[in-house]
């Protein structure tokens, strides 16, 4: 009896799958004379309002442009996105529209002609770029490497910031700490009351990388980044190791709490919402998420803490443009016109304004909006700090032509939470840098 059931089920499955498999997927067959354009971003999670908005707009684009078959290949997992992008290049069929991180770390893509210069198109269509903030294009300009042009449209400027649970500080009668000295002073009281002073989810290595750059800006300003990239400063030099030592010091005195390797950025948010953490260090990308918290009224947004002893760098920030949309099609390619239309659609003022409204205002945008919905309280608080920034840089390693440096630095900084010594961490990073530079005659 059981055998018969099994056979019946197997037969039914095989019969039912035959027509599907024989026809393949109808959607993927040649698209009736349509120009196929593929777009690859990291927006694939419909649980995130911004990513859902992108997916809805892909569907809308296909409806409005019957002559183009826009295929959304987006996948939010970074490794999977990179595999898709790199294999498409290696197989000689680069994806037409893609998210691009810019900076020197991605110089090779520009130098090898994978990314197309769009400066001519920007000049030809000034209305398209009129609302964009000019200072956001720096990471996609490569003039210092002898390459002219602009290689992408910024879509995601950001700034690091902190969210404080004001209710906790009020409960303990502690004024909101704005400097590292004040945070250190408040730590014993916060720990005694059972709170983590500043949750740090080190499970994901980018947390350490972000923190290091943000801290370096408050300690030394952007000159330190320039010196590191030029080789004047070393990753195992005094200044660089001092920063790592300070991170380790904060960890040792309990500012970051315990079990940091057991949770990630989502865990930080959860600790903030559940009143376990007094502060979290994050970025403007989480404004929408924090706004939706059940205790959002208790939370305030402030800048990354600075040092009382170094007031001149109080308003130096980690932030700026983070992600760009670029194209690989070249003028003269059969799909160039269609590709350009896709690029303009997803970087248009209307698209960004729609996103702003869909996400209820939260976040930072590359364009200045005219009449639109008012921003929420947390975004306004963020902007009050952000607008005072006197200097701003992305993560230090992004400025280095050594593409693997970002991962090397982040991974090594992660070992602070497993007991590694600051000098050993600096030495490990510098060794990799020296090896790469000698191999590349840099």
């Amino acid at each position: 009896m059981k055998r018969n059931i099994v056979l019946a089920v197997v037969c039914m499955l095989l019969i039912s799958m035959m027509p599907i498999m024989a026809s393949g997927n109808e959607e993927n067959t040649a698209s009736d004379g349509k120009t196929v354009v593929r777009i690859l971003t990291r927006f694939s999670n419909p649980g995130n309002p911004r990513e859902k908005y992108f997916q809805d707009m892909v569907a809308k684009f296909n409806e409005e442009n019957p002559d183009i078959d826009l295929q959304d290949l987006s996948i939010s997992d970074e490794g999977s996105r990179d595999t898709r992008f790199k294999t498409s290049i290696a197989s000689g069929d680069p994806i037409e529209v893609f998210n691009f991180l810019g900076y020197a770390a991605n110089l090779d893509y520009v130098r090898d002609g994978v990314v197309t210069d769009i400066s001519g198109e920007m000049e030809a269509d000034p209305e398209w770029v009129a609302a964009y903030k000019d200072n956001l294009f720096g990471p996609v300009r490569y003039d210092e490497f002898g390459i002219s042009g602009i290689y992408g449209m910024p879509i995601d400027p950001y700034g690091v910031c902190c969210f404080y649970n004001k209710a906790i500080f009020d409960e303990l009668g502690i004024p909101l700490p704005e400097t590292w000295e004040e945070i250190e002073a408040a730590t014993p009281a916060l720990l005694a009351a059972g709170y983590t002073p500043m949750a740090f989810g080190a499970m994901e290595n980018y947390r350490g990388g972000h923190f290091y750059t943000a801290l370096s800006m408050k300690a030394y300003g952007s000159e330190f980044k320039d010196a590191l990239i030029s080789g004047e400063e070393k990753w195992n030099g005094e200044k660089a190791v001092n920063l790592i030592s300070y991170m380790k010091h904060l960890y040792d005195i309990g500012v970051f709490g315990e079990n940091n390797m057991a949770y990630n950025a989502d865990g930080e948010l959860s600790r903030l919402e559940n009143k376990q953490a007094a502060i979290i260090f994050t970025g403007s990308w989480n404004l929408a998420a924090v706004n939706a918290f059940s205790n959002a009224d208790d939370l305030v947004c402030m800048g990354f803490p600075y040092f009382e002893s170094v007031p001149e760098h109080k308003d130096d920030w980690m932030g700026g443009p983070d992600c760009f949309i670029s194209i690989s099609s070249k003028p003269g390619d059969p799909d160039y016109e269609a590709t350009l239309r896709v690029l303009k659609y997803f970087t248009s003022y209307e698209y960004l304004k729609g996103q702003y409204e869909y996400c209820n205002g939260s976040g930072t945008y590359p364009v200045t909006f005219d009449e639109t919905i008012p921003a929420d309280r947390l975004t306004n608080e963020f902007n009050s700090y952000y607008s005072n920034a006197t200097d701003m840089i992305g993560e230090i390693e992004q400025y280095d032509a050594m593409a693997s440096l970002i991962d090397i630095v982040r991974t090594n900084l992660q070992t602070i939470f497993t007991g590694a010594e600051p000098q050993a961490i600096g030495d490990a990073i510098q060794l990799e840098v020296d090896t790469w530079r000698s191999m590349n005659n840099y």
Partner: protein
Amino acid sequence: MKAKYLKKHGFGSIFYWLIAVLLVFLFLYPIYFVVVSSFKDNNEIWYTMFSLPEEVEWLNYQDAIFNVGILRSVLNSFLLSAGATLVIVIVGTMGAYPISRHIIRGAKQLKLYYLIGLMVPAYGMLIPMVKLFTQLGLRDKYWPMILLYAGINFPISMYLIIGYLDSVSREIDEAALIDGCTVPQTLFRVIFPLCGPGISTAGILTFLNVYNELVFANTLLQRKSMMTISVTLLGLKGERFTSWGVMFAAIVLSILPILIVYLLMQEKIEAGVTNGAVKG
């Protein structure tokens, strides 16, 4: 009562049961965690990791089915796995038989040739495969992927089936031939049923390998409607935000078909796996 039990069974028995309970806990805990988390929101998953949900979040399942399209991904994974398994069972057996019985000239060399397939890592072929699929327009299609997966799993399956065939006496073949069977009839009517456990092992391994495969699926099946389970689940791991509840709900939904297949074919699978342990 207790003393009587101890006298009869000894402390070894208690130790045995303790270990058994511990193992049951170890194996069931991940399933418990996944199922319970599938009914929580992100905050509750992190805050109360081990407890039951305070409020059941059915929305996770709704999102997993309608927004994420996990059922389509489950169907895709199932079709690819079943297709590759079918090809392996038929072609693998047909290929293994002449090699095992030395019916063709150069059988030994052919066996060695298939060994290369085991020695070359499949992912080393990724770029040429992407190029081939792109040039021939084979991306986002079922049959090319089924053949690719069958090809990748062919060498190991061949060796498993050959190993089992070698243990089946040749006198059975001779008896079948004397009774008037042709070679194909001998293979499919006599040898095939006798090699059931060996072929099942190869089939199960192929099915599981394909069901869980990620790299080729990620690069060759890129349209939403063609994505497999593993690729779809990665799509939920956001740039800076992961929908854990939805992801766990999707995992539960993707486990169900395998669980049903397992319950229906429990005896065969267990026999196949045990056999594989001996013959493999």
